[in-house]
Structure formats: structure tokens, C-alpha cells
């Protein structure tokens, strides 16, 4: 395997390593030796340098240029520089075994001196003097491989390629597990273990080894191809986009997903400049990021949006042997969904916060305790209730209710609502402010559940409806006033008829009284007649009284009073008021009132007003017609179990379609000079009684006005 280490591999050399260094320039020599020495000194190893071609000063110079002051090391003896004479050629002769023994001894001594290991480097140029035979040198180097692995010693043997015979250097290559060629460090595949090298049949050993090496190499190539194919498949299999670019933006490689996105075939893309495929502003933006990778050598990650799609981009530097960034690998993932979800979440959060803060209704967030406590409330809550937020947090809602009983009542409403409908919706309920005043509210409460469905709290929205209640009351008052005005106007219109209605009983009273006087003046008075006359007088007096009473009731300005009423009684009280008008217009009124009707709940005067109005309208409608059809029928009946219906039918011309639709509109009138308010007021009165008022064309040919009112419980016989 070709394992390309960087220069820093030199720095990783450890005890047991045996390296050769084959250099071609002095610069290479320096670059290898300096870190080797420095590292050893810094690590507390004994550093032994054997110099030959280069002098000791040169070596010290290397250290000095590197910023290492050698003096203290020399002084302490950690750094020892000797000449090859003192080492390899002691006694003038090179003895491999002797050298190894020397090394051993030196190592043991170094260890005894407290150093962690012995680091040795020797310049082998002395061997050029051909004193040792090349075989002896190689033998030595081979034998070293028996020594080093289990020792606390490490060495670099320096060989000047310019000066050594290639044949020898071949042997050097065979004898060092690690080779430093130039400045590149290699795990040496040509290394032959000493046993084989020095063995009986080195040639067949070598042959075996070469053949094995061929096989290994082929396997390596296959494995490489396979891993490349796998890598390619992996690259193309996933849907993220990947590309490899150089510093200028040339596409060196790209995956299928990216090719599809860029809209061109894969092979066409390789070699193109990626920046030309984007609009200038986009290219500029992205290039800024990739340039940063080239400059800093660190990965850069950024998010980017184009044509509605969001990408998560990672640009990863690819370092060469020198540690320079020559290429970058770009990987981009479509994160649109995530971004959109994030944006939606952010928007929702903002919306909630805005709503929470600006909402004019009080919003209370409560926890799931029993009873729940206020966990948070919005600014509006302070205005609605009068407490500050701090005063409300952590408390149960009891202090916001008018009293204990009301609180329990509210709880009951809430429980029922939650059970039936899951939430409480717009309950009108009184609450209490800080200053003690009770005020009307509209109350909604919804339980909050977490993902598992367990209740995690409550949200309550409380709207202060004081204004609305007041406005409603004002509106009600206005309607009352208007209804009163209408009643007074009606009464005004009826002056002549009412006078007539009073004249009738008065006539009866006077004539009966004068008749009685005549009877009594006889010699034998007919007392039965006198008695009967007096009875009739009384009855007529009362009848006149009831007309007056009816009139006064109509004129009275009263507040809406709710009580159980008999609809037939209502009719009975109104008919005398209109009788005169009917007669004046030659209209007969026929009553068809059902017996045993249930009572209705409402305001007597207002319902009388409705009936009065309908009768007057009926009389008006019949006024112009010929005799025989000038008839009004007032009918009451129970149409459904829960409603009572009153109908006023006439046999007049009836209503055409357009009139029928518009007849209840305010200010619409078919009467010349009519105000058009009557039916509108009637309708609003009937509505206020939870009833309905409508008009139909009845089979007899005239119009019929129907009033339907809900009946209360209980019948009146």
C-alpha cells in the first residue's frame, strides 16, 4: 500500500523504527534531519548524531535555524555529535556486530541516564570509502532489523543518492522498513526481513516475495477499483447533490443527482466551470464560500436559497500530501421542507406572540392542576381584571370570581361543556375586578393536550362585555321608546273609534238608568226590569272602564316585563280598542280562539301592541271593499307542542309577491301617508319574545299575518 504520509511522519517516528533516508539535495537533508533531532530532544530521548560529510556545525546550524538552542543539550549530554571515525570506523574497521553491540550499550546507558530512548542518526557517506564491502554494510543494516523492533532505540540512516551506487541503494531499500525518499516517507514495500535476506537462498526468497508482491498489487488495484466503484455508486445513489471542484471552479467530479439538477449529462459537466452554470450574483455568492475553504483549509457550511429551494451546503477541503487544499468536495442537501417548516413555526410563534400581546381580550394560560393555576396571562388581562401580571401568576382563578357560589356555578358549566363539546364556548358570566366591582364577561375555555393526549393545561379567553351589555340595553331602551311612540300614535289615530267605544257603554248606562226611573215611576213598578237595568248599568260601566284601561296601558311607557300571559286574554283586551275602528269601516271582527292554550311568556303591553297593529292593518286593508267580504278573523291555536300561533286573516286583496317580501322592511308602506314602521316594530317585538312574525296569502284570497310564540310550561284552562 502506498501510504502517503506527510512530512510530519518524521515526527511520528518512535522507538523500534528503523528508517533510511535517501536524499538528493542538502535542503532535503536538512528538512529530514531537523525535525528528527528536535523531536528527540523535546521528548527527552538521548540524541546521538553521527556526522560525516556534513559537519557538526552544519547540524547544529540546522537546529538553530529551526529555533532550537542546542547548547544546553550539548552541555547536559543529551545531544551527542560524534564523527563516523568514532562510531562506525572505530579501530579503523567496520564491524557490523560490534556496531550493533555498541548501539545496545549506548541504549542501555541512555536509559540508565534517565532518557526515555536512544535516537540515532548517522551519515553513511563514510561507506563510500569502500572500506567495508557493500555486502557488509547491507548485512549490518539487515541485522539492525533484528535489533530495533524490540529496543528502545530508533534510527535514521542517511544516504546521499548523488554519491552512492544505485546497486547499494537497492540494498539499502531492502533493509529499511520505512524509507524517506526526498521528503516523502514510505512504508517500504521493498523491505526484506533479515532472515530472508541473509538466509540460504536469498534469490528464491526474493522471487517468492516479488510474485507475492505482484498478487498483492493486483488485489490492491482490484480493491481500489471496487472501492472506487462503491464510492461512485454511493455518490450516485443518494439524492443529495455532490461535486468536486478545484480552486477555479472546474468540475472535477459530480454525481447524477447534481447533474440532473444542473440539467446536463454527467460527462459533459466534468471539466466545465461550475460558476458559469449559475447566474452571476448566485455564482458570486457561492464562490465566496468555496474560496474560504481553499484559503482556510477548513470546511465551510452554509445555507443557500435558489428558485424556491433551500440547500444545506457543506464544502469540505481535500488536502494533498503537502497539506494544501487543491480540491473541495461540495455536498448539498435540499432542506426546503425543513426550512419551510421552520418558517411556518416561526410565523406561528410570532402570530401567537403578537396575538397574545395585542389581543384586547384577557387570555389566561393555566396548568393542569386541580384547581388550575394561572401560568401566564397577556397584557390585556391586566386591563380587564385590574391586577398586574405578577399579582395573578401562580394563583387559582377563584379570586377573579364574584363569590364561592358563582365559582362553583362556573365550574359546573365548564365541566358540562367540556364533557359534551370538549370546550366552553362564549358563556356569559359575571366576574370580579380587583376593585371589587362585578362585570359581565364572555368566557371561552379550551383544554390543551400534549401529543399523547393528556391534558397539559387550559386556555381561557375572557372578554369584558360591559360595553356591549350597555349598548344592548340602550338598544332595547330605544326600541321600547319607539314602540311606545308607535302605540301613542296608534291611540291618536283611534281617537274617534275609542270615543265610539266609550259612547256605547255610556248609552247603555244612561238608557238603562232612565228606563229604570220610568219603571219606578209606575204605580206597580216592574222591579225585575229595574234590577236587570242596574245589572246592565254595572256591566256597561265596567266595559267602559276596560276600554279606558286598555287605552292607558297602550299609552304607558314601561320597561319590558316578562310574565306568563294568556294569548286569548291579550286578544280580548285589544278588540275593544279597535272595535270602533272596525265599525267605522264596516268591518266585522270574528274571533276563533282555541280553548286550553298554554301560556306564553312576555310583556303584556308589547304583545297587545302587536295584535292591535295587525288588526288595524287588517281593517285598513278591508276599508275599500264591498260589503260581504269586510271580515277579519282572529284565530289562536296550538300548532306544535311547544308553540302557540295567532293569525289575523282578512278577505281583502291580499299581498303580491313583492309586497310580501318587503312588508316588514322599515319605512315601507302600502298606505298613502303611512310611516311604514308598524310591522318593523312588530317584528322586532315578536323576535324579542323568541317568536316569529310572517305574512302569507291564505286560500280565501286575502292576507294572513301569523305570530308564533314559544309556549311556557303549564296550561291555562
Amino acid at each position, binding site marked *: 500500500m502506498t501510504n502517503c504520509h506527510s512530512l510530519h511522519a518524521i515526527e511520528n517516528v518512535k522507538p523500534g523504527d528503523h528508517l533510511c533516508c535517501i536524499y538528493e539535495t542538502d535542503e532535503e537533508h536538512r528538512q529530514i534531519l531537523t525535525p528528527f533531532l528536535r523531536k528527540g530532544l523535546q521528548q527527552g530521548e538521548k540524541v546521538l548524531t553521527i556526522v560525516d560529510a556534513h559537519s557538526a556545525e552544519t547540524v547544529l546550524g540546522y537546529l538553530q535555524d529551526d529555533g532550537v538552542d542546542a547548547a544546553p543539550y550539548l552541555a547536559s549530554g543529551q545531544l551527542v555529535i560524534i564523527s563516523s571515525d568514532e562510531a562506525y570506523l572505530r579501530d579503523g574497521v567496520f564491524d557490523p556486530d560490534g556496531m550493533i553491540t555498541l548501539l545496545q550499550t549506548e541504549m542501555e546507558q541512555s536509559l540508565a541516564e534517565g532518557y526515555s530512548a536512544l535516537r540515532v542518526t548517522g551519515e553513511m557517506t563514510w561507506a563510500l570509502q569502500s572500506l567495508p564491502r557493500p555486502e557488509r554494510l547491507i548485512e549490518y543494516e539487515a541485522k539492525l532489523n533484528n535489533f530495533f523492533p524490540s529496543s528502545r532505540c530508533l534510527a535514521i540512516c542517511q544516504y546521499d543518492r548523488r554519491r552512492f551506487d544505485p546497486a547499494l541503494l537497492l540494498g539499502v531499500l531492502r533493509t529499511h522498513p520505512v524509507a524517506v525518499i526526498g521528503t516523502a516517507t514510505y512504508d517500504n514495500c521493498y523491505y526484506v526481513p533479515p532472515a530472508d535476506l541473509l538466509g540460504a537462498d536469498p534469490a528464491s526468497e526474493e522471487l517468492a516475495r516479488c510474485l507475492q508482491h505482484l498478487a498483492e498489487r493486483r488485489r490492491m488495484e482490484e480493491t481500489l477499483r471496487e472501492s472506487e466503484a462503491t464510492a461512485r455508486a454511493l455518490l450516485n445513489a443518494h439524492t443529495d447533490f455532490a461535486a468536486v471542484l478545484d480552486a477555479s471552479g472546474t468540475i472535477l467530479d459530480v454525481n447524477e443527482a447534481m447533474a440532473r439538477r444542473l440539467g446536463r449529462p454527467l460527462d459533459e459537466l466534468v471539466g466545465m466551470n461550475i460558476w458559469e452554470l449559475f447566474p452571476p450574483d448566485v455564482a458570486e455568492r457561492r464562490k465566496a464560500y468555496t474560496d474560504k475553504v481553499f484559503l482556510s483549509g477548513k470546511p465551510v457550511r452554509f445555507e443557500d436559497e435558489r428558485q424556491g429551494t433551500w440547500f444545506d451546503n457543506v464544502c469540505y477541503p481535500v488536502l494533498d500530501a503537502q497539506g494544501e487544499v487543491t480540491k473541495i468536495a461540495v455536498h448539498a442537501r435540499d432542506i426546503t421542507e425543513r426550512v419551510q417548516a421552520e418558517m411556518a413555526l416561526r410565523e406561528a410563534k410570532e402570530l401567537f406572540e403578537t396575538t397574545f400581546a395585542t389581543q384586547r381580550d384577557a387570555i389566561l394560560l393555566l396548568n393542569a392542576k386541580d384547581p388550575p393555576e394561572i401560568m401566564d396571562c397577556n397584557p390585556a388581562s391586566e386591563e380587564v381584571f385590574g391586577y398586574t401580571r405578577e399579582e395573578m401568576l401562580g394563583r387559582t382563578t377563584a379570586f377573579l370570581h364574584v363569590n364561592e357560589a358563582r365559582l362553583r356555578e362556573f365550574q359546573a358549566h365548564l365541566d358540562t361543556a367540556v364533557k359534551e363539546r370538549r370546550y366552553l364556548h362564549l358563556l356569559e358570566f359575571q366576574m370580579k375586578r380587583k376593585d371589587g366591582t362585578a362585570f359581565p364577561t364572555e368566557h371561552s375555555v379550551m383544554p390543551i393536550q400534549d401529543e399523547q393526549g393528556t391534558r397539559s393545561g387550559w386556555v381561557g379567553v375572557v372578554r369584558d362585555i360591559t360595553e356591549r351589555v350597555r349598548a344592548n340595553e340602550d338598544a332595547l331602551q330605544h326600541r321600547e321608546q319607539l314602540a311606545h311612540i308607535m302605540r301613542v300614535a296608534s291611540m291618536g289615530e283611534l281617537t274617534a273609534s275609542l270615543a*265610539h267605544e266609550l*259612547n256605547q257603554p255610556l*248609552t*247603555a248606562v244612561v238608557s238603562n238608568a*232612565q228606563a229604570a226611573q220610568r219603571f219606578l215611576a209606575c204605580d206597580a213598578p216592574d222591579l225585575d226590569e229595574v234590577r236587570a237595568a242596574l245589572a246592565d248599568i254595572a*256591566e256597561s260601566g265596567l266595559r267602559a272602564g276596560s276600554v279606558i284601561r286598555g287605552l292607558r296601558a297602550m299609552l304607558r311607557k314601561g320597561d319590558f316585563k316578562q310574565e306568563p300571559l294568556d294569548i286569548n286574554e291579550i286578544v280580548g283586551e285589544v278588540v275593544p280598542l279597535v272595535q270602533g275602528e272596525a265599525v267605522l269601516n264596516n268591518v266585522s271582527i270574528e274571533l276563533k280562539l282555541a280553548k286550553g292554550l298554554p301560556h306564553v311568556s312576555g310583556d303584556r303591553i308589547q304583545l297587545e301592541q302587536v295584535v292591535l297593529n295587525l288588526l288595524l292593518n287588517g281593517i285598513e286593508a278591508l276599508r275599500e271593499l264591498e260589503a260581504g267580504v269586510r271580515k277579519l278573523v282572529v284565530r289562536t291555536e296550538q300548532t306544535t307542542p311547544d308553540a302557540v300561533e295567532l293569525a289575523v286573516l282578512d278577505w281583502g286583496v291580499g299581498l303580491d309577491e313583492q309586497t310580501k317580501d318587503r312588508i316588514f322592511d322599515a319605512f315601507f308602506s302600502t298606505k298613502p301617508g303611512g310611516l311604514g314602521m308598524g310591522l318593523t316594530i312588530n317584528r322586532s317585538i315578536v323576535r324579542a319574545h323568541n317568536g316569529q312574525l310572517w305574512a302569507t296569502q291564505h286560500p280565501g284570497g286575502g292576507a294572513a299575518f301569523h305570530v308564533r310564540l314559544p309556549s311556557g310550561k303549564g296550561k291555562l284552562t
Partner: protein
Amino acid sequence: MNKNDPVVFVVDDDVSVLRALQRLLKSAGFRAETFVSAQEFLSYRRPDAPACLVLDVRMPELDGLDLQERLAAEGTSIPTIFITGFGDIPMTVQAMKRGAVDFIPKPFNDQDLLDAIDRAIDRDVRARREQSVRDRIQTRFESLTPREREVFATVVTGMLNKQIAVHLGVTEKTIKVHRARVMQKMQAESLAELVRLAERLGITPSEDRLEAAPSD
């Protein structure tokens, strides 16, 4: 009370008023028949006795004035007193123009009504008598022969017998005989009376008739 006693018909849609009026009339010795509507009165077979009608003007369906019209159309005329709870002027004028005896607003003093009833009944009595006399005269006239009617018609012009004879183409003697019979049948005592009777009957002698040739 016998069936020829005067009767007061009262028509009013208000039952209590009707009852009170009946009582009042009874207390004053009148015979009263009450009706609650105009229709009811129209479908009642009236007795042959002097009568008057006390009538409420405004009633549902058919009111007083309509009833008055209906009766006129029938050919009956009963003296009518209108009473009303309304008392408006145009109505009064209309009623009086149509020949009502009186128009009394309610409530009224009993004497006012009773006096009006007296006047009304008197009127009716006279009218009935008038009618009865007229009937009798009519009967007598119808008993005349055509020739006698001719003689009657010419005698009352004041012509002498011999002139009539010439005019009719008969002898004076015949005329005298006819004349005597006419006087007898018509129960006239004098020429003057005959003339009055002729007026009553509405016989007006015309010039044409004198010129025309008589036909026997």
C-alpha cells in the same frame, strides 16, 4: 198590546245598547223589536202596524244608510231615527237628506229618543192613513167602467153635460146617467169633491183627449 199597536224596530250591532233601548222602550210603553244587524231586520216579516225604525248608522257589513237605501228600493218607507256613537256631520246631512226623522248622537236623553219615536210613529200613522184612503179611492175608481172613467175625466174639467155629450158623441141624457153613476161609485157629494178625488188619483185631463174621437 195587540198586534196592531205601533212597533218600534231597533237595529244596533252593540248588544248592550240594544238591550238598554229595549228596556227603555218597554218602560215608556212601546212595543219594541230588536235586531243586531241590518240583514236580520231585512229578513224579518214585519207586522202590519204603524212602525218606526231606530237605526245605528255605523254597523259592520251593512250599515244604517245602506239599509235605508234597501228599504227605499223595496218600496217600503218606515220613518227612521238614526242614532250613532260617532256623530260626524257629513253623515248627519246625508241621513237627513234621505228623509230621516231625526239624528241623535249617543249617549242621549231618553226623552229625546222617545219624542222622536212619537213623531216618527205619528208620521207613520198618518202615512198609513193616507195610504189607506188612497187605496180606497183607487178601489172606487177601479170599479168604474171605461166609459164612466172617460165621463169622470171630462166632468172634472168643468165642461157642461151637453158639451161632454158632443165631445164623447153621445146624448146628454147618457152623460147625465154616467155622471150620476160616477158620483155614486166615487161617493162624491159634489163636483168639487169629485175634482179633489181626481186630483188625488192623479187624473189630469188633457186637450188631446177632448179632440180625440170617442170610442164606445
